[in-house]
């Protein structure tokens, strides 16, 4: 595997093509769970975990079930079902094995099913690492890498945002802009800052 490709995926997913700030995936949790740092961190961890494992599972499903059976057009239905049932499973396992972790992550897990970043990364993996149903070399490892670092990028954006919003509570914001509108404007400035990474080349 080329170090160059690996690096460009890592930097690309975390900074240049950050899922939230430049691709607009996963905005609902980004705005909904970013009021305080602690829940934001829990949500971020849950997303990294679910994203990586969803990337893992959907690669196998696509490669060994959908492509051989010529059912590629069922991709969307199958992926969302896989993700939904996987999230359900994780929720049950965590509830049984580690109640404290469940209290920290529990309420965020169901939300992740409808987080478009998760479905987005699985579809993106298939679009980038398969050509006409045939996997490119190292496609499995690269899919996993891409899913994991997309999650890292999401968490980074979420943490930065929640840090800013915690301080924002103390500031006098124009009444009409307080709440959601000011959050959008801050996100816009953050996205502007992240555009600075655009010049990176390997």
């Amino acid at each position: 595997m080329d170090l160059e490709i690996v690096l460009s995926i890592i930097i690309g997913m975390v900074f240049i093509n950050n899922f939230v700030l430049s691709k607009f995936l996963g905005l609902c949790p980004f705005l909904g769970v970013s009021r305080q740092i602690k829940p934001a961190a829990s949500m971020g961890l849950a997303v990294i975990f679910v994203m990586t494992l969803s990337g893992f599972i959907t690669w196998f499903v696509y490669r060994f079930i959908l492509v051989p059976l010529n059912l590629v057009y069922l991709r969307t239905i199958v992926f969302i079902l896989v993700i939904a049932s996987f999230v359900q499973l994780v929720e049950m396992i965590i509830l049984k094995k580690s109640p404290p972790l469940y209290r920290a992550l529990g309420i965020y897990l169901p939300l992740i099913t409808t987080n478009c970043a998760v479905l987005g990364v699985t579809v993106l993996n298939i679009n980038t690492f398969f050509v006409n149903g045939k996997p490119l070399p190292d496609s499995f490892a690269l899919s996993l890498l891409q899913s994991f670092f997309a999650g890292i990028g999401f968490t980074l954006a979420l943490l930065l945002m929640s840090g800013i919003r915690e301080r924002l509570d103390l500031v006098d914001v124009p009444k009409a802009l307080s709440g959601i509108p000011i959050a959008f404007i801050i996100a816009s400035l953050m996205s502007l800052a992240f555009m600075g990474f655009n010049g990176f080349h390997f």
Partner: protein
Amino acid sequence: MRNLRALAVKEFGKGIFRENPVFVIVLGLCPALAVSVSLENALGMGLAASFVLVSSNCLISGIRNIVPNRIRIPCFIVVIASFVTIVELLMAAFAPRLAEQLGIFVPLIVVNCIIMGRAEGFASKNRILPSILDGLGMGLGFTLALSTVAIIRELLGSGKILGFTIFEVYPPATIMILAPGALLTLGMLIGLINLITGKNKR
């Protein structure tokens, strides 16, 4: 008869302004921002989402008494994902250029919170006709919101609307068709609506 008409106006009308999914309830943001680069894309996305919304509302309302309560969410997801797949295939066949431009956001209609929100919040509790009207209204509201954002961004970002040049007096503000412009436009629009309606969420 008058009751029926009043009901129709109520269910249809609420999605357009008073409960506008994007501006007021703040749902379905990811496509609203990502796709609103140009009015053409926004209209295409609005139509696709409206089709899915109306069909899934209709079907879900039809099966609401058959589906056991505990597994209703997975059932809704399957219904929605099936309609999204239909749209995906239709769009790839009849509007390939649009499908290419919308890209990953066509399969991502599945996780558009508006559709799931209406299925869970309205269609699963109401009869078929109100559900269809609700879907139509919400779809239209979504399309209108998308178009508003798109018109502002396309006009300021490239001086064009639907590809026709409106003005070329000064160099267009390219930032508006990039990611930060989308967030800024939506934040300002929601702020403006808060100002007009005198509503403040906090």
